[in-house]
C-alpha cells in the first residue's frame, strides 16, 4: 500500500480496450502489459467469467472493474512489505475502494451521460484530463490522517464552538438560496447543513476531496460544476467555494443563482467576518480533529473513531509521542498502520454496512476471509492484533467503531479497557 509507492491506474474503453488514460506510479507499465491485462479480462468475459482481481507471487495485486458497461478501470499495485495487518485481502479492499472512488470522481466532473455513452473517444480523452488533479490526489492518498476515501465516512473536525459555526453555515446557505452548505477546516468538515449530511456518504467524501484539491491551489473562491454520482449524475449543480481564511473554506451547492460575484461581494463578509475568532480557534484544533480538552491518553498512539449512524469519522495521532526503546513508529507510519488495521478489521471481523463492492463471485484463492466472516454465527465486537511495530485494538458498538494503536509496551490485557475509555472520553466530551 502507501509505502510501496502509488498504485498505477489504467482506464480503457470497456468495449474495445482503447486506452483513455493512465495515472500514478513512477514506472509506467509497457503498452503490451496493459494490452494483456485488458485481454485477460476480455477473455474471461467471453467465457462467462468476471475477472476481478489477481495477485502475483511477489505480493503484487491487480484489480479490474467495468463501470456502466463503458469504462474499464484497472489498478495495479506492486508487491512489498505491507507490515502490520497487511494482507492480500486488505490491499484488495484498498484497491477496490480506489477504483470506485476514481469512477465516482470521473462522474463528479463529467457526468454519467458522457461516460456512459462514449461517442467520441478522442473527445472523452480530452475531457478526462480535467479529472486528473482529483484522481492524482486519490492515488497519492493525499493528506495525512484523512480516511474518508477508505472508510466512506466524512472526515470531520470537532470544533470547540460548534453551535456558532452551525448557525453561520445554515444562515449562509439559506441566504444563497441553498439547502446545502458546508464548512471545511483543514480538509475536514467542521459544520454542515442537515441536507449536506443527507447526501450519499461517498458524495460527502468526494466533495471534501474536491474542496481540498481546490483549496490546495491557493485560490480564494470558485464556481465549479459538479455532478453528484448518486443524487444527480446527469445534471450539474454548482459548487461555490470561498476561502475565508487559509485552511478554512465554506461551500454551497446551488442552482443557477446567485452568481459567484454576487455571493462573494454580498454574502461572505456579512456572515463570516463576525466569526473570525471562532474560525481561528477551529484552525488551531488543526490536525488533531478534537478539541484540546479531549486529548488521547498518553498510551494511545493513534485513534480512528467512526460514527456508524452519521457516517462521520475523526482521527488523531498522539501529538507528543514519547521516545522509547524500541523506537515508536513515526507519525506518518502511525497513519499507515491505522489504515492497514482498519482494512484488516473490516475485511475479517467487522463487515461494512456500506457495500464494499467486493463482488460475490470474487474469491481470493489466497485467503478465505469472506467465508471466515460469513461463518460467524455472531457479530464480533472487538478484535486485536499484535505485530512487531505496535498493538492494535478494534471495538464496535451499535453506534461507533473505534480503532486504536498503542506501543508494544502496553500489556495486551489492558487494551480493551483503554479502548472503551477512549471511546467514552471522546463521546462524552463532544457528543460525537
Amino acid at each position, binding site marked *: 500500500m502507501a509505502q510501496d509507492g502509488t498504485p498505477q491506474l489504467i482506464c480503457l474503453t470497456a468495449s474495445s480496450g482503447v486506452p483513455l488514460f493512465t495515472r500514478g506510479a513512477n514506472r509506467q507499465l509497457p503498452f503490451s502489459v496493459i494490452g494483456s491485462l485488458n485481454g485477460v479480462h476480455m477473455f474471461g468475459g467471453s467465457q462467462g467469467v468476471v475477472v476481478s482481481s489477481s495477485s502475483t507471487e511477489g505480493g503484487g495485486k491487480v484489480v479490474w472493474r467495468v463501470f456502466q458497461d463503458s469504462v474499464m478501470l484497472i489498478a495495479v499495485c506492486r508487491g512489498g512489505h505491507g507490515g502490520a495487518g497487511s494482507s492480500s485481502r486488505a490491499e484488495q479492499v484498498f484497491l477496490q475502494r480506489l477504483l470506485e472512488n476514481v469512477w465516482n470522481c470521473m462522474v463528479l*466532473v463529467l457526468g454519467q451521460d458522457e461516460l456512459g455513452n462514449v461517442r467520441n473517444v478522442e473527445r472523452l480523452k*480530452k*475531457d478526462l*484530463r*480535467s479529472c*486528473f*488533479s482529483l484522481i492524482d490526489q486519490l492515488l497519492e492518498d493525499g493528506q495525512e490522517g484523512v480516511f474518508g476515501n477508505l472508510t466512506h465516512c466524512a472526515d470531520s473536525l470537532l470544533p470547540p464552538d460548534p453551535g456558532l459555526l452551525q448557525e453561520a453555515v445554515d444562515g449562509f446557505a439559506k441566504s444563497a438560496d441553498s439547502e446545502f452548505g458546508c464548512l471545511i477546516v483543514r480538509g475536514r468538515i467542521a459544520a454542515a447543513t442537515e441536507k449536506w449530511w443527507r447526501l450519499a456518504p461517498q458524495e460527502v467524501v468526494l466533495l471534501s476531496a474536491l474542496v481540498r484539491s*481546490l483549496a490546495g*491551489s*491557493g*485560490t*480564494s*473562491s*470558485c*464556481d*465549479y*460544476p459538479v455532478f453528484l454520482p448518486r443524487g444527480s449524475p446527469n445534471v*450539474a449543480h*454548482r*459548487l461555490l467555494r*470561498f*476561502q*475565508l*481564511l*487559509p485552511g*478554512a473554506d465554506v461551500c454551497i451547492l446551488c442552482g*443557477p443563482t446567485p*452568481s*459567484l*460575484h*454576487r455571493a*462573494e*461581494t454580498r454574502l*461572505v*463578509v456579512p456572515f*463570516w*467576518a463576525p466569526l*473570525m475568532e471562532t*474560525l481561528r480557534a477551529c484552525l488551531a484544533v488543526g490536525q488533531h480533529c478534537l478539541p484540546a480538552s479531549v486529548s488521547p491518553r498518553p498510551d494511545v498512539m493513534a485513534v480512528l473513531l467512526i460514527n456508524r449512524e452519521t457516517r462521520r469519522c475523526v482521527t488523531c495521532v498522539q501529538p507528543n509521542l514519547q521516545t522509547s526503546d524500541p523506537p515508536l513508529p513515526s507519525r506518518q507510519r502511525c497513519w499507515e498502520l491505522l489504515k492497514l488495521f482498519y482494512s484488516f478489521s473490516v475485511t475479517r471481523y467487522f463487515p461494512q454496512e456500506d457495500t464494499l463492492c467486493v463482488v460475490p463471485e470474487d474469491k481470493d484463492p489466497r485467503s478465505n476471509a469472506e467465508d471466515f466472516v460469513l461463518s460467524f454465527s455472531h457479530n464480533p465486537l472487538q478484535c486485536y492484533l499484535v505485530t512487531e511495530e505496535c498493538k492494535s485494538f478494534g471495538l464496535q458498538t451499535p453506534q461507533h467503531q473505534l480503532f486504536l494503536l498503542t506501543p508494544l509496551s502496553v500489556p495486551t490485557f489492558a487494551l480493551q479497557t483503554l479502548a472503551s475509555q477512549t471511546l467514552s472520553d471522546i463521546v462524552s466530551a463532544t457528543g460525537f
Partner: protein
Amino acid sequence: MAQICPPGSILVADWHRSKDSKEYFNKILHKKRRRKFGLLESPMMPPHLAVDTVHYKIFICGKSGVGKTSLAARLAGMNVPNMHYETKGIETTMVYWPVKLREGGKVLFFCLQLWDCGENALRRFDHFLPSCQEQVDAVLLLFSFTDKTSFDDLSNQITRWTGTSLVKVVVGTKFDLFMHCDVTETDVRTFEETRSLPVLHMGGEDIDGLGDVAPLLNCLAENLWHQDCVAAASGTRRSQQETEALI
C-alpha cells in the same frame, strides 16, 4: 476607451525596489514568500500608516493551455503547476499589490481579484461567461509565444470587448520557451502600434520574487487607476466601485 498610459506616468516605477516601499511590501510577504490572504483578511498597516485598499475584478482569457491558471498562480506568488490540468470552472485569486502615486506620493493597496475560467468549461456551461463579465474592470488577453494561432486570435478576442470601458492588457506567455518561439518581436511590435494596447511577456524563472510580476501588476494598477480618474472627471465613476471599496 481610455488611452493607455506609459509605464511610470502615474505610479512610481519599480517602487518595490526602493527602500521606502519595504514596510508596505512586508505586509504581503511571509518568510520571503507571498502571504496568503483569505477573503476575510487583507494586509493591515499600523494606524499611523493606514492606507486605502481599492478593489478590482480582472478577467483572464485565452484558449485552453495558453497559461491562464499558471499566470494567476504566478501573479499571486503561488506554486505554478507544471502540468496542464484543465480548469473545470471559475477560480479566482486575490493579489494584493502596494503602489505609490507619483503625484502627491500617496500609497494605495490594489486588491486585484483575478478571474480564471477554463476555456473548455466556458464553452460547456453558459453561465460562466456572464459571471466573469459581471462588473469586470479589466481583461488580460493571453497568447502563447509558442502558438501563433493564439496570437492571431487576439483580434477576435479584442472585438469581443469593444464598446466596453475596460482596461485591456495583452500578455504573451511561455516567453522562456524561446526554442519553440512562434511569434516574433516584430509581430508583437506591429501589434502594439496598430492596437495601441500594452503587450507584456511572462515566463522563465522568478528572480527576486517580485521582479517578474511587478511590470504586469504595475501596468494593470496604473491603467485601472487612470481609467477611474478619467471616469471620475467625466462624472461617471461607477458607484459600485465605491461600495466595494467600503466592504
